[in-house]
């Protein structure tokens, strides 16, 4: 049995939900950012898979879209980690549950 689109879709669904579980359950900002990256990457996998198995792949839309997504993800990671640093400097902790100034 050769590889079909479904293989890649199932894999990316599993990876996406692993990322989602992590983002929802972990208590560490950097781990949460990592989980965001995992989710973005599984989406990229989907894009490339759809492109690869599409009937007319010549316009290269899949790689193009993924390229833009990676660029944006890189920006997001840089900004997110800079914000983590700023938060740490201000609160002296990066536990998301102890940063609740607005709530109190």
């Amino acid at each position, binding site marked *: 049995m050769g590889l*079909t689109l479904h293989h890649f*879709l199932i894999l990316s669904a599993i990876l996406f939900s692993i990322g989602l579980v992590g983002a929802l359950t972990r208590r560490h900002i950097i781990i949460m950012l990592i989980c965001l990256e995992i989710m973005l990457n599984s989406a990229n996998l989907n894009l490339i898979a759809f*492109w*690869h198995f599409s009937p007319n792949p010549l316009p290269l839309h899949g*790689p193009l879209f993924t390229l833009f997504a990676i660029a944006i993800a890189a920006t997001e990671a840089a900004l997110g*980690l800079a914000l983590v640093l700023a938060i740490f*400097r*201000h609160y002296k902790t990066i536990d998301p549950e102890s940063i609740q100034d607005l709530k109190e």
Partner: protein
Amino acid sequence: MNIAFYLLALVAVLGAGLAITLRNVVHAVFSVLLFFSALAGLFLLMLAEFIAAVQVLVYIGSVGILMLFAIMLTTNVMGDPNRPVRSRGWVWGGLAVIALLAGVLLPLISRTGGQTPTPLSDFNPSVKQLGMVLMDPYFASVGVIALLLTAGLIGAVVAATGASEADQKKTVPANRPNYPNT
């Protein structure tokens, strides 16, 4: 190709799974790097070699290092053993995700017998074509991305360093010795 896919899929799932379960943050980052490299392999498997190179360059070479730097600058790596790893309502989060996964996967699994389009045999996407496409119809988006990256990086630099000077001014003790000649 089949073996390669299953191997890489296993590595990817393992990497991602370890990343969200390990207590040691640095270990988590290294396992997510494993996940990124497995994904680069999968891209290579689907003939998107430029994307694979960019994946390695951006995710492993830069984002991973950035994360390690952020960890080194902020937390205790091993984590506080008294602090729980999971957040308060973690059961609900997990259940919601499992439900979502089931919802997404059920239609797919039920239809695995259905044929999907076969991969192309004589089509070899080259980097040159990608470059051409980037230059001709999508030039504006390339410009927008470039602008976004620049703005994002400047923002990151400002967010990471801008506040520090103000903070440092506040924390300087009043009786700090003054060294005029240094």
